[in-house]
């Protein structure tokens, strides 16, 4: 008992260096988001295969256009490059380039938000008209929330970096935000191919 008392007595312990915590947590959250989207896409592809096998067509009475979703894909693809540019800059103690890259990442994210909403209005897909619409809105809507969350995460970590909360050369919070951003873009590219390209 004396040993136990000695072990637990006194002031709180000094914090231990835990550089990976945010990164690990973000990986888990990104994985869970991926599974949510994978489940929805699985349902979508399964029902589409069934419809194609029976009636030979999937989207009826609606034209799914490619330009807008493709612009989102290109925007998000570019955003991955600039997000990693931001991370590289902070890891190499280059604040100026880091802030420019973060601003560009968020700008490309905002452009994608704009394109996604524009695409929804252009499709004219009534959610109460077809099962296909329910699936498309569930998938793209869930990804839209993921995009907004990624933008918020990058903005938050950018502000923290701006406030000097990360030591230069060791910006794990920003690395976590970029990881989530990558996962979000990867998810979009899968959706873009499965929903819009293959139609």
């Amino acid at each position, binding site marked *: 008992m004396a040993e136990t008392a000695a072990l637990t007595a006194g002031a709180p312990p000094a914090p231990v260096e835990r550089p990976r915590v945010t990164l690990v947590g973000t990986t888990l959250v990104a994985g869970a988001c991926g599974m949510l989207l994978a489940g929805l896409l699985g349902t979508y592809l399964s029902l589409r295969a069934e419809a194609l096998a029976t009636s030979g067509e999937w989207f009826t009475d609606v034209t799914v256009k490619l330009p807008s979703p493709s612009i989102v894909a290109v925007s998000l693809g570019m955003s991955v490059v600039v997000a990693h540019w931001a991370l590289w800059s902070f890891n190499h103690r280059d604040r100026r380039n880091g802030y420019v890259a973060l601003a560009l990442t968020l700008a490309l994210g905002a452009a994608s938000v704009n394109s996604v909403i524009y695409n929804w209005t252009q499709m004219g897909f009534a*959610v109460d*008209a077809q099962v296909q619409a*329910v699936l498309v809105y569930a998938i793209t809507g*869930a990804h839209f929330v993921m995009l907004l969350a990624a933008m918020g995460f990058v903005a938050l970590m950018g502000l923290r970096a701006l406030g000097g909360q990360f030591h230069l050369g060791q910006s794990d919070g920003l690395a976590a935000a970029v990881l989530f951003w990558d996962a979000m873009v990867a998810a979009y590219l899968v959706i873009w191919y499965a929903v819009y390209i293959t139609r």
Partner: protein
Amino acid sequence: MTATATRPATAGSTTDHDEVAAPTQSILGTADHKTVGLLFLGTGLLYLVVSLVAGLVVGFERLDPSTADLLTNDTDVLQVFALSQLGLLLLGVLPMLLGLALYLVPLQVGAPAIAFPRAAAAALWTWLLGSAMQLASFGINGGPWGGEPDGVELWATSTFLLILGLLLATVCVVTTVVAHRAPGMTLRRTPLLSWSMLVAGAIWLATLPVLLGDLLLIAIDHANGRLAFGLNTEMWGQVSWVLLAPAVLMATIPVLGIAGDVIPVHAKARQRFHDGVLVAIGGFGILTFGAWSRPLLASEPVDDSVLYQGMAMLAALPLLLALGAWIDTFRQGSLRLTGPVLASLLAVLGLLDVVGTGIAIAIPQTELAGTTAVNGVAGAALLIGVLGVLAALGHWSPKLFGRSVPDGAVKLGAVLVTAGAVAVLSGELVAGLYDQGPLPVGADLRDTAEAMAVVVLAGWALATLGVVVVAAALLTATLGEGEPADDDPWGGHTLEWATTSPPPPHNFAEVPLVTSAAPLLDASSPEEDAS
């Protein structure tokens, strides 16, 4: 993130106002993993009793499916059935296991706090909000088969919130195991409860989001055209896959970790084949991944697939491996049948029984797939989860509450819950052999199936009684003026026993250095071979 779980006490600065405000603040404003864990555990226990009573009501209605006795009509019976089934998983077993993990895992891995303490608190309140909304939704004729559209949407939203809260808590627990371990504690040296929570957490994070997606489809479709997913009659089929094997077995993964931490301590011996048990828990976890078995994904019945049949049969192997290791541990030490040991052994043997029944269902010639036998597997698997919680309460109650739960109450509770699980499993299995369908209404029962309905009802009654016995003993022990428990009454092997009971705000005065899977055993018998 810096852990600011609990504000350090400042001696001599307490005013009367602080004394009044402190208890409320310590609950509502806390991010301390121990308080959050206990709140998950306590409310989970309460909702477990509610779900078990709902199961009893359904069991009573099944005695004569042609009429509704306690309830007014078949729709009500189906709604209470949905509440009892999903409630057992999302309101009872998973929250209680997560409550234990939130409390114990940081202590086991030598961390001063849980990872993301504020997220853990947010998880609790999200889950609590969801649970209240869930009960309200059933109260206003919502839920699957519900007649009130707003109630149905409230049910979908509340289930969404429940899962969201559970997932958030899971992220905190898994991150703690991965990134908060004490110096020297490799994954191979991680205590088995923490390891099992790492495995279970990974499976829960891979499975429950898929259920979230299904709920999203239900909510969107129900609020708009009600074309397919949102139809009242179709909802249950879209979410009930999580209550069928293999997915429902994910609730039993931590039971293996609990048994793995309890048995060596009470046998007074080092865990035999520790690495083998780690592999067994990991292997069993992988075999419980069941998101692929959703009916929305498959055009053919899942039960006919080779994957389903293979997974069902393979699931027995890791269990046998772990059981063999524990039998050998008893051989090295001594078989002391304390309450936690009895509950652990009954849980593992019961799990083998459940897996065995799963194998029988997977064999096409038995024609049990699609019958009520699947409800037997689900019910028994969840009761095995409850049994694991009882074992954990018996073993870790000194650490959790500063008081020991009477051993006799744990033994009695374990025997009653086991008897309940066996009755539910065997009753539903035999009824399944007589072609009784999985829903509790509309069936034209044969005599034998009718008799089995009595057995199943008795099973739920025994399980409810077992839980109430332990809950009452727990309340008496914690609220009474009994002797405070010792810091380490069992001679524990892992780090949680190196601190006081209950632990101080930051768990440990200094982060201990770990050199084996049983650091405290090494300290007490350094000459023994730690390998």
